[in-house]
């Protein structure tokens, strides 16, 4: 059975988050409970919520988060290995067998900055990766990101420079001296 006026993802997300005014929410509920098509959409969203933690843990992509997110992750039982780095600093790092995520806090002069690019440069000075438009954690004032332990464990020992840029301006270089994971 199809729906003539299916609930959009945006409005369904807003409803779940309590963002709709009472009248809107009530009207949406009447439709949601009566419509199997939209009920299936709601089920998809709950599946996404249920699966997102596991999916992020398996993923390879850098995940911009906030310090509060890291607290929540830690509180939910995830194992985090955390590093703080300041411009010009060199940080010794590694990854353990049980680390779900490596979380990095990049300190910088970020007043008035809401978006940065993160550039990864190898030992030969070659740009290996550029992640654009990372948000800045407004509460902590840092750029915070997580990478899954699963993604990092295969890395060899290496030295990488992480460079923060905004609007073509360099904010800082951070050197990470990574020691490869050794299985126990």
């Amino acid at each position, binding site marked *: 059975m199809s729906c003539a006026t299916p609930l*959009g*993802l*945006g409005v*369904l*997300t*807003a*409803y*779940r*988050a*309590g*963002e*709709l005014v009472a009248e809107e*929410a009530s009207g949406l*509920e*009447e439709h*949601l*409970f*009566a419509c*199997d098509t939209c*009920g299936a959409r*709601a*089920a*998809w*969203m*709950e*599946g*996404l*919520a*249920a*699966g*997102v*933690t*596991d*999916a*992020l843990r*398996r*993923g*390879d*992509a*850098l*995940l*911009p*988060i*906030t310090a*509060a*997110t890291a607290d*929540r992750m830690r509180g939910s039982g995830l194992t985090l290995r955390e590093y703080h780095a300041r411009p010009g600093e060199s940080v010794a790092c590694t990854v353990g067998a049980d680390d779900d995520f490596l979380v990095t806090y990049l300190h910088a002069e970020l007043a008035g900055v*809401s*978006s940065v690019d993160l550039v990864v440069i190898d030992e030969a000075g070659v740009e290996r990766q550029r*992640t*654009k*438009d*990372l*948000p*800045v*954690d*407004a*509460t902590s004032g840092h750029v915070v990101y997580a990478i899954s332990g699963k993604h990092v464990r295969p890395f060899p020992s290496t030295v990488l420079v992480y460079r923060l840029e905004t609007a073509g301006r360099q904010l800082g270089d951070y050197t990470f001296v990574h020691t490869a994971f050794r299985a126990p």
Partner: protein
Amino acid sequence: MGCHATLQRVVVSAEQAEEAALHASFAARILAFGRCHLRDIHAARDLVQQVLLIVLESLRAGSLREPEKLASFVLGTCRNVVHDWKRTGQRRQDLLGQHAELLLPAPLAPDMASLDRERLTGCLDGLAARERSVITMTFYEDLDASEVARALSMAPGHVRVVRHRALARLRECMGEES
């Protein structure tokens, strides 16, 4: 004796099938209702249990006079339960005491958790960094648009745009009709 035992098994099996069908149809909708009105995932999960128990009891007692109005009855039960909880501050403990033998043993969301996790991982990896951040804060941290906006120095409207775009891309990537 053999026939009685067999009949018992058939009855139990039919009841379990009824429970499973009700759960499959309404659990996600009740959970969404709970998230909206209770703003707490644990309370929302308790709401699913309580509402489904009440509805099952009503169905078995023949109290639902118009079966075609089941959906409306479920929604009405959600509203009544949440209203009672907010008024009295009571929740699951009372229900457990009264109906422990009826509690659904199945995991809360076997049908809701049926997304292909490997594919979801790849699809999340394919989002832009900011989209990934907004999705994580929305679906892992249960933050609303204003809360995400404050955390990331974005306007709430911008958060909603990014969120909507990310969801559309996820659904397309997961092979779902948008």
